[in-house]
């Protein structure tokens, strides 16, 4: 369709040149306009003279001037019809036929973007959430919040997205509103703290620490507040306390959590022993007899699955769950978990990408 319009426009442009070239030109006339003009000039002088805008003798001279021009124009030889020059017309036609499309196509090929469709704002807002780009989704929620500033859920959804987009100040505002409107929970306190840290370029401020303390008090097992409390201790120079907090955290961390490995390195940098408890847990499971081992693993997996069913926003959790099902040779459950994960994390393109990467890795695509 696009190329059809391009072709039509080009054709119209070329025809606008070729059409007059093909027509027989008007016969050259006398200098009609000159004659009319000098006649009008003469009349004008007479009018001026009648109103004594010009002295009679000057009017006489002016009329003589105009009359001289009039005669010259009236007697101008009619230009002889130029010898028809089909060769010149042919040359011009061919040149235009080649030049116009060649120039416009090649210039457009350099600067044009035929592959990009129009993207009117209204149409982008109406696309289904699964295909909606993150920016538009955010804009949509923002518009909704501008109308309903008391909808705490909107702020709760926006805050992590803002963090992800690097809009730390907006994240702080959103997290604060969510806290205010929905009441404090461990997650909300932790989120607010995280936003504050991000806004302060990674420094755990006093306010942020307070928020993490509140979160840790509500849910002592939550990893995020403890990580940041450890960070706070490290930034305050209290290495021992940082080691203690992080050591415990690493000990309870899931085996394949990448953040646990990072944390181990940081603990090592603090000069402490990386937590061994993880290995100890693995060793304990290893030591169990075959049936007992599987049931132990299954117990952990079921716990994870039920936790994710309640709160689906944990990407690492989903990835671990899918892997675990594969270890247990439960391919159908793994597939179902993949679909659930995608549904829960639809707003986060990065998460979707990682889920899909895992699906490919495990041969679960399609």
């Amino acid at each position: 369709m696009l190329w059809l319009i391009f072709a039509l426009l080009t054709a119209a442009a070329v025809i606008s040149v070729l059409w007059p070239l093909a027509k027989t030109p008007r016969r050259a006339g006398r200098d009609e306009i000159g004659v009319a003009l000098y006649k009008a000039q003469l009349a004008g002088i007479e009018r001026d003279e009648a109103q004594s805008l010009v002295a009679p003798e000057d009017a006489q001279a002016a009329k003589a001037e105009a009359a001289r021009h009039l005669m010259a124009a009236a007697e101008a030889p009619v230009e002889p019809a130029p010898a028809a020059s089909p060769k010149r017309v042919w040359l011009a036609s061919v040149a235009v036929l080649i030049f116009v499309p060649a120039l416009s196509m090649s210039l457009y090929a350099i600067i044009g973007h035929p592959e990009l469709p129009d993207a009117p704002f209204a149409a982008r807002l109406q696309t289904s959430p699964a295909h909606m780009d993150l920016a538009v989704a955010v804009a949509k929620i923002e518009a909704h919040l501008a109308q309903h500033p008391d909808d705490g859920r909107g702020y709760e959804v926006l805050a992590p997205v803002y963090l992800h987009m690097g809009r730390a100040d907006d994240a702080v505002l959103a997290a604060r509103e969510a806290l205010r409107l929905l009441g404090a929970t461990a997650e909300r306190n932790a989120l607010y703290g995280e936003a504050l840290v991000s806004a302060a370029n990674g420094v755990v401020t006093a306010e942020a620490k307070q928020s993490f303390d509140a979160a840790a008090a509500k849910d002592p097992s939550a990893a995020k507040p403890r990580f940041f409390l450890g960070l706070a201790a490290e930034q305050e120079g209290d290495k021992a306390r940082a080691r203690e907090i992080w050591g415990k955290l690493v000990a309870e961390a899931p085996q394949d959590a990448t953040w646990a490995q990072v944390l181990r390195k940081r603990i090592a940098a603090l000069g402490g022993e990386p937590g061994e408890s993880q290995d100890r847990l693995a060793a304990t499971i290893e030591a169990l007899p075959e049936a007992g081992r599987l049931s132990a693993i299954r117990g952990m997996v079921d716990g994870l699955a039920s936790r994710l069913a309640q709160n689906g926003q944990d990407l690492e959790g989903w990835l671990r769950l899918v892997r675990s099902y594969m270890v247990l040779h439960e391919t159908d459950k793994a597939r179902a978990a993949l679909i659930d994960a995608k549904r829960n994390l639809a707003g986060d393109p990065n998460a979707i990408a990682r889920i899909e990467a895992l699906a490919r890795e495990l041969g679960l695509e399609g």
Partner: protein
Amino acid sequence: MIVETGHYALVLALALALVNSILPVWGSIARDRRLMAVAPPVALMGFGLVAYAYVALTTAHVVSDFSLVNVVENSHSAKPLIYKITGVWGNHEGSMLLWVLVLSLFAAAVALFSRSMPQDLRANVLAVQSWIAAAFLLFILLTSNPFARLAEAPAEGNDLNPLLQDPGLAIHPPLLYLGYVGLSITYSFAAAALISGRIDAVFARFVRPWTLIAWISLTLGIAMGSYWAYYTLGWGGFWFWDPVENASLMPWLAATALLHCTAVMEKREALKIWTIFLSILAFSLSLVGTFLVRSGVLTSVHAFASDPTRGVFILLILVIFIGGSFALFALRAGGLKQGGLFAPVSREGALVLNNLLLTTCCATVFIGTLYPLALEAVTGEKISVGAPFFNLTFVPLFIPLFILMPFGQLLPWKRGDLAGVAQRLTVAFGAGLIFMALLAAWRGGPAVSVILSGVALYVLAGSFVDLGRRLFGGDISASIVSQRVRCLPRHAFGTAFAHAGLGVTLLGLAATGWGAEKIISLKPGERVEIGPYELTFESVVPGNGPNYSELVGRTVIGAKGAVVATIEPATRFYPARGMNRSEAGIATLGFGQVYMSIADVAANGVVNARIFWKPLVSLIWIGALVMAFGGCLSLSDRSFRVGIARRARKAQVPSPQPAE
């Protein structure tokens, strides 16, 4: 899809402009009528393509298509529809597209309305117009493409500069461009006449209506721009001698001189060199103006662009077109035949003096505008040439012009009698002097204002002396007068009104001396006196616009205890750009205005306010309207229809038209 097809149409327009730059000129040299006949249809097609591209860009702005860089940078989905449309030309890329649109519009108009024109002249005019179009299309496509795309469209745009979100922007740039770019036609005529070597009354006859159209638009555009600055910048000033304003004033001065020249040339074939020179000069100054505004060498409200590649490109266009045309002029000027002869004291002589004064004014503005830039470029020193410089140079040049204006209108052609004319102007002199005496007795006040007011009234009266004599001279009766009104050419009325408009503007300017100004902080409920009025500042009320929030300071204006008007000066905040702008509250009382702008609204409702009483200030812009009205009267004059009447007879219309 409309975006990319619009983009392609623009590329295609460039290809056609190049074709039309060559074939008609080749045709006129080879005397091949077929090649010359190419020019009009291609000019129409070129206009169609540019218009399509322009519609495409406007559509993208209206539907907030943020896959276009231009829309992202200058629009916002919540912006009111009117500013989505005007925002198209509220930025560098879009305004350049408007520039080319107007350029091709004029070419199309010449193609449609100048059929009776000698074919070689028309072919060459359209070819020169195509050179300009090709240069600017290339500039747009290579350095300022409004159709640049983004693969990942952002969710929201940056919004338009709040200063530009104003009805003034809807009118000011298009009018100004009609003027600026309209002068391209006179330039093309001059260049074509130089190429074909045909510079005579016929040439003047065809160039004159285009000059008038450009002049009218430029007059209105400048007035509109000045009024816009007056009410949006919040300083109560209407002319700042800002380089951008000067950039529009210079072509206006040149076009004004040109307008008078073409009249002489059409009637007497005199002032040929002046006409050609001013045609080239006027458009060259438009180009200089475009360069100043678009290259970013200036930093002011208008300078949206600051990209050196653009500046160099426009400079190149400038050098080629100005240099080329003046070179051609130098080459051909020597061979020009002497036209009608005239004595120094005559209508023609007066107009030569007019040309000299106007071009000197123009040169003054040019120096005042470019000297600081040149100095900064050479030594790095920044100086500012402002009102004091222009008051000392421009004003003394303009005063004699005002004095001489009525003389020019009354002087006979070829040879005149100065004393006789002065005698006829006694009424005007008397009116001016009496007015001065009255004002001095009533207001006292600054001598400059009194004198200028007198001059203004003299100009006003003098403009109509000639007309009055021609209508009411000798023994009169109602029927004779009405017959004379019908017989008198309309351009006579046009001249009178255009000159009178200048007098009206001058009166408005002179009255600024009697104005009053106060800068104070006001508590809610506080009263303040300004001029003959008393203002009561009531309260600050918050409000919300579509894409801004505002604080409105309701103020009631009273005189002698009675309420005469209410004004609502406001300060607006535009969150998308994080910018504030003030919206002045203006009440027009008589011809004067009470003007109030507020800023720094404190929590307890105390505001800092600037309050002005400006007597007769609206006359400044009313004068411009009167001038434009005079221009329109001239444009409707039947002498412009000579060619058309001729054609009608030739086509043998069944009911013959009455002979004109």
